Structures are given as C-alpha cells and as structure tokens.
C-alpha cells in the first residue's frame, strides 16, 4: 500500500489548497503545490499543473482571492489568499472530513477485527 501514491479527487485537492492558504497566508500557485507535496510527505500523486483548475474553482466560489504580485525571487507571480467565506468553508469541510474519517475508521476496524 505504501509504494503507490493516492490519486486525489477533485474536492480533496480543493480542500488541501484552502488549508494551505489558511496556514501559510498569501502564496502563489507554485508555492501551494510544493507545500502540499511536502506536507503530505510525498504520498500524494499530484501533477502540479492540476492546481490551477482547483485555484480557479475556488476563486469562482469566492473562497480565495487572487492578485498579481512579486515573489521573493523578484518574479512576477499571482498570489492567492483565503477569504472569510473560505475560512468558514474550510472549517465546515474539515469537520466533515474528520467525522467521515472517524466513522470509516470504526467501520473498517470492525471489518478487520471480524476477519481476523
């Protein structure tokens, strides 16, 4: 199970981006992608390019804002930041995931226990 990376569903990538922005503050697309790679311990299969689809989705729903700016290396880059609505959404989604994970865990534990 450890060798193959987890394929990300569309909704989960969006959630990860939101969390990253909430934790890191303003960041550009490359930075967000690298951060997700690092935090997930390289267990996530991520084509970095797919982040832009997620970013535009989050933008259209008003959960993040975007602005062109200059990066630390003096490069022109588009910076994203989470909005108040985005924070609220993040909180709701995070709660949902935790509940889901807990329930799935209990159910699967049962299954594993039974099969042993």
């Amino acid at each position, binding site marked *: 199970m450890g060798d193959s990376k987890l394929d990300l569903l569309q909704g989960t990538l969006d959630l990860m981006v939101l969390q990253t922005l909430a934790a890191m503050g303003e960041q550009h697309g*490359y930075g967000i*992608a690298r951060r997700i790679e690092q935090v997930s311990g390289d267990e996530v299969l991520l084509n970095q*390019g797919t982040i*832009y689809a997620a970013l*535009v*989705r989050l933008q259209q729903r008003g959960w993040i804002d975007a602005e062109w700016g200059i990066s630390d290396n003096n*490069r*022109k880059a588009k910076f994203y930041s989470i909005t108040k609505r985005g924070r609220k959404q993040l909180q709701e989604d995070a709660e949902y995931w935790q509940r889901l994970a807990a329930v799935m865990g209990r159910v699967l534990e049962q299954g594993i226990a039974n099969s042993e």
Partner: protein
Amino acid sequence: MFDFVRQGSNRVRAFFRKGALDADLDEEMASHLEMAVEENLRRGMPPEEARRQAMVRFGGVQQAREKQRASRGLPFLDVLGQDVRYTLRTLGRDAGFTVVAVLILALGIGANVAVFSVVNTILLRPLPFANSQQLVWISPPPTKCGLSCATYSSDAYEEFVRYTKSYDGVTGYMAFTGPDNLRLTGRGEPIPATGIEVLSNFFQVLGVQPLMGRSFTPQESRAGAHPVTLLEYTYWKRQFAGDPAIVGREIDLNGTPTTVVGVLPQSFDFGAVFSPGERVDLLTPLDLDKERTWGNILTLAARLKPGVTMGQAQAEANLVVPKLCWGERYPQSCGSYVNKHGTSMLVRTLKDYVSGRLRRSLIVLWSAVGMILLIACVNLSNLLLARAAARSKEFAMRSALGASRGRMVRQLMTESLILSTGGAVVGFGLAWSLVLWLAHQGSLALPLLSTLHIDAQALGWTVLIAFAAAVLFGLMPGLRMATGNLLESLKDSGHGSSAGRKHERVRTALVITEVALACVLLVGAGLLLRSFLKVLDIDLGFEPDHAASIRVEYDDTAPTNEASELKRGEIFQQVIARVSTLPGVEAAGIVDYLPLGPNRAWGTPAPQGKTFPEGALPGPLVYVCTPGYVRAMGMRLHGRDFEWSDGPKSQEVVMINAAAARIYWPGEDAVGKVLMSGKDELHVIGVVDDVHASSVEAEKGSQIYYSAMQNGPNDAQLVIRSRVAPATLAGSVLRALRDLNPNQPAVEFQPIRTIVDRAVSPRRFFMLLVGIFAGLGLLLASLGIYGVIAYGVTRQTQEIGIRMALGATRGRVQRTVLGRTLGMVLLGIAVGTVASFGAARMIASLLFGTEATDPVTYLGMVLLLIVVALLAGYLPARRASRIDPLVALRTN
C-alpha cells in the same frame, strides 16, 4: 443557492473573457515552471535535468490548461461552438447535399406550420369573443326544409328568454338577408352594402366592445326610433377611409338618413364566424315587432351563466321547446318547434357550430401533412446515411485518435439540428406567405379564414417539429456511424462488402417505409379526388354555366295589395323585356332566392281531395319567380311556365318540383291538379326537376314556386342566360337596369357558376391540399428509390463488371436492377395498401359516392407508384448497363 448563482455568473463572465484569461494562465504557468526550475537548480541539478524534472512534476501543460478551462468557463458551450463551426464547414463543402436537404425540410416543415395555423385558427383557437367557451348556439338539427326550420319567430324568442334560466343573455340575428341588400346613397352612384339586422343585445351577449362609439340600446330597435348602424372595421376603412369622426355622422342607407353610432373592432368579423365566404359591412338593430308576423326569422345564440353546464342547458331546452309558440296569438302553433325525432333543440358551443363540421377534414389534413414530414425525415435519414458512409474513414480516424462515441454522435446530431434549423427558417418563410395568401381567399367558404395569421404558437410549433425532425432523421445515421467497425473502415478498400450490404439493407428498409407512406397519401388523395369529381357530377337541377344573376332594385309600393302586385308585374316585365333585347341573351327571369343560398319555407299545401297522415306532408321551400326564370336557370320543366297573364285576378298557379309531386300524387302526373293551402286553391301548371336548394351534397326536398304577380317576393335576383360569356354583359345589363330605375346600385353581376363553386369550395380546398401532399410524397419517395438503387449499383460496380465480362448483356443487367427496384417498391406497396385500408376507413365520412375500398382508386395508385418507381430506377439501371467491365475491374 447563492453559491450556485455566484459560480454560474462567474462562469458566464469567464466564457466571454477567454482570451484574457488564457493569457493570464499562460503567464502564471510560465512563472510556475521558472520557479520550479530555479528550485531544481538550487538543489544542484544541471540545467537540462532541472528543466526536465520541472516539466515532469508539472504534468501535461496542455492538459493543465484544458482542465483549468473546463473548470472556469462553460465547457458545454465551447464544445457546441466547436461542433457548430465544424458542421458548417463540412456542410459548406457539400453544398449540393445541403441545399437539397434544406429544401426537403423546408417543404415539410413549412407545410406543417401552415396547416397547423389553419387548424389552430379554425379548430383550436377560441373565438374572438370574451369568455367564448360560455357562448352557445341554439338550433334544431338541419332538416330538408332548410333555413326556415332552423330559425325562430319573434314570439318564440321572447318566450324562450322568459322560460329559461340558464343564460346570461340570449340574442340572435335575422337570418334571411342576402348580400348587397342595402344601398349607400347620397354620394353619387348608389353603392351596394350588405347589412345584417341583429338584436340590440347582440354585442353585449357576445362580449364585443366597439372600437369607437357604442353599441345599440334597446330603444333603438323599437318602431319609430331613428335608424342607427354599427360599421364593421374593414368597411369603415374601405368606404369611409377610416374617418375618425365617423361616429355621430349620418349616412344615407336606402335613402334613409342613418346615424353611425360606432365602429366595431378589427377582431370582429361577422362573416368569418356566422356566414363564411360572405362579407358583411354593417349591422343594424332588429325590430322584433316589425317581423313578428313574418315567421321564423331569428337564429339564436346565448351566453351560459357561470357554473351552468351544457348538459343542464340542453335538458332545460328539451323541457322548454314544446312550450314555444310560433305565434302567441295562434295557440295551435304552440309546440311547432318539436320534431318527431326528439332532437328539437340542440344546444352546442358556438365554436362547435362554427367549425365543428370541419373537424374531420382538418384532422385528415393535419395527418396528411404530418405524413409528409415523416416521409421527408425518412428521405433525409437515407441521404445522411449515404453521406455518413462516405465519411466512415473520417470517423474511424477520429475514434482512433480518442474521440468518444458520445462526442461523435453529438457532432452528427449537431449536423442534423443545423440542417433542421435551416429548413425551419426557410419553411417558416414559406408558411408565412402561404398563410397570407390563404387569409385573402375570400371566396373560400371556410369559417374564420380571414383571421388566419402566423402567431407565436405557430413559431413554437416550428421550433418543436424542427427539433423532432432533427432527432428523427439524425439519430439513426448518427448511431450507425459512431458504432461502425473501426478496422474495416480504415482499410483502403472503401466499400467493405459486409458493412456495405448491411448499410444497403437499412436504406432499403427506409425506402420501403417511404413508399408505404406515399401509398397511403396517394390512396387518400385519390379517394378524395373521386369524391370531388362525383360531387361535381351531381345533377344540380339547373345549368350553372352561361348564366349570371344580379340583384334588381325595385319599388312596388302602392295603396292596395293588388295594385302593388300589378305594379310589380309591370316593373319585372319591363326589366326582363329590356334585358332580353341585349345581344346574346337567351332567357331572363327574376326569382327571390337563388339555389344554394338562403331559402325559406312556409305553408303546408295539401292535394285537393286527398287525406294524408299527420306529419306526412312536407313544408316545401318557397320560391317566388317570374315567367322566364325556369328557362334562364336551365331547369327542366314538364308542363308550362308562368305567364304574364297569370296575374292577381286570375287563378293562383304554382309549379312544384318532382320530389313534391311524388309525395302529393305518387305515380300520377301532377300537372293540372290542385293543391289546397288553407282556403286558397293552387293550380299546378308545371313540374320542375329537383334543384339542389341548400347544399350540393344534401338530399333534395320539396319545392314550390309561386308567381311573382300573385305573391310578394322577398328579393329580386335577375337571372340571365346568354350565349356569350356573362361577364361581357355586365356593363350593358347594369346600364339597362339604371335606365329603368336610376336608384339601381352598382351591384355585382355574379355568374351562377361562382355560387356553385363557393358551395363546393371547402371540399375542393381539402382535396387540392391532400393531392399536393400526395404529389410531394410521391416525389420524395421516388427520390429515395433513386438514391438507394444508385447506391446499390455503385457498390456492386465490380460485381456487375464481372458479370458483364462473363457474358451478361446490357439488357440483362438493366432488368436485374429494375427487378430489384420493383421488388422493393412492391413490398412498400403491400405494406402501404394495408395501411391505406385503415386510413381510408377513417376518412370514410368525408367521402361522397365513393367507397373506402374503391378498387379503381387503389389500383390506380398502385400503378402510378410502380410507374414512378420504374422511372426512378431507370437512370441507375442505364448506368449499370453502361459499366465498362475493364474499368470496373480495375478500380477498387
């Protein structure tokens, strides 16, 4: 909810800013890659490796772009836009096919929209009155005694109003006026006008508000009131140039100053609703007292009270009708409205009265035109299949490159939809012009025809059938193409044998369907044509050709009845003598009612000395005429005609028709016998052959003719028979009449043939339309046959070449191809004939003198189809026989 709206509006905005957003993303991605390369360089990778690793981690750039685009815009629209552009390109390249397809669709859709408008106007749309579903028509069912038995007297009307509680208002109009019954004088030459007398509450009950002015008050319909009139909209526009100050002005009608109290709205057309084929110019109030002793004069219409059902109104009518008296002062006339069948008084919706009898014909017409669209769709399906087969390589390629089946089907459906839209646009234009033309056919006696117009509903119908047609003809080729065998199609030998054969089978099946549908249409049209010819063949009892009639204005006022009759006789004699001197005139006479128009009846004369059981004596239609009329009409007479010496002082003479004679004196010669009408003795001097009095197709009833010098005619129609065309005499006849009476208005000189034509015009109209549709269907079916046979020949070019190389003659090859054509067509005819039997049974009630299984028609249509099919197959057959075996074997 808001989230959805916000997202939606963002997506729409993004759709329109494609270019800017794309550039933005490109910049962003370039920046991303540069930063990735930098980081890799910092880690110590060599530049090429840094770049490569950055690209690998990034993933597919194009894919990232597409994903982002899909997330931000309206991908559905993007795909649609692509498909549409591509389709327009491919259709543009194949211009011939596109034009043919659009034309076929335009014909099918246009015809459908036009017929829909007609059906909508006549059957579906409510009448142009307020709450028209509450309006009812009250009358007995039609009988042989014509209009007189379909109307009520003044007394009966008032009683009806008194005894019934179901209605908010009961109204009616005088049914016995003919066209051009009034003269508009005071402006130079008298101009004829048609006026109808209506009860003063007519417009209130119908719910019609005048456009200007007001409608009548009850006082205005009493004796001695100042004459007033309401003008119809088109008459106001035409005769008075739409003068806005017309209300309150006095106009001269028949020499009497009449005040115009109002103008009716454009939506009100008396003729369109109550007397189709005839134009009414103005309306005047009816004085019930003036006509009280006249007899049955009123038609009845009423508005139901809210909440009252038709069943309740009918039940009430059944109870009331025995109490109605023709004349309150004649108690024996009470109950005279009861007929022995128990259906004395029918209450039906006004809409049903106006257009109910056309329902069948219109439904048949609608079905016929629907069948045309079906044939057109089958034809197009065939054409598209042929086209798709030619593009099979293209589809195989696209499939190999990754296009999903759904995407390809969608692209093909886009093609169908675009063709359909093109056809719908052209078809809508066709329908518009057709409807415009139809609405102006005043001589077509169809109700509400003048209100025919294209409206939003017709547009909606156009869109609907265009869409349905696209799905119908596009789905089959689309599915077939998208599911084709990839490998087979990519091979160089384009016409793979098994795929091609299956393809041809499908197309053949489609053509068989086309032939069957065309067969049904042809049989229907053939039956209607035979019925029409039979109707034309009917012996009308008179000769409509070479005769014309014109209304004569006369004044026979005199102090006594007898003096009046003498004066009248003199006037008529002068007129007839004068007109007879005109060159070419063979005979002339005057009558008060022409056949096939309004009529009236009174009295039940009985043969002298014989007794008849109750109810066995007919109430014959009464005509008052002068000597010479019978000859002028070309009626056949046994006995003698009236003479000018049959005056008020001599014995009263009558002529009766053969039907009456058969009833009064069966098996004997009626000439010389006497009829008793009350105390009067009527001497029968002649028997005329039956004349169709009320309609060309109905049975002939009894008729009796009185002399104009012994009875008062209601009107005076001068009938002239001439050797030359009657139209050439119009001017001289009018001048002769004017010479004798300067008050003679310039009325129309109407050929009798026109009257007959108008009477059969609805039947002719339907027959023509169904005939045109059948012709169209035949054309389309033959095109389909040609297409399939030609395709088959092309597909089998090699095989035919081999055959000819092995010794088959040209004739043999031709016969084979024609044989295949015939086989296909015969199968279609077999299916079509079975379907025709069913269809014919449904139109049986529309036929006249023709059985639904008329063998001549079926045989004729079958032969026609076979001949047309052979013609269609002839060209490909010839081409097949001309195949050069060497060439055929060389090509692939």
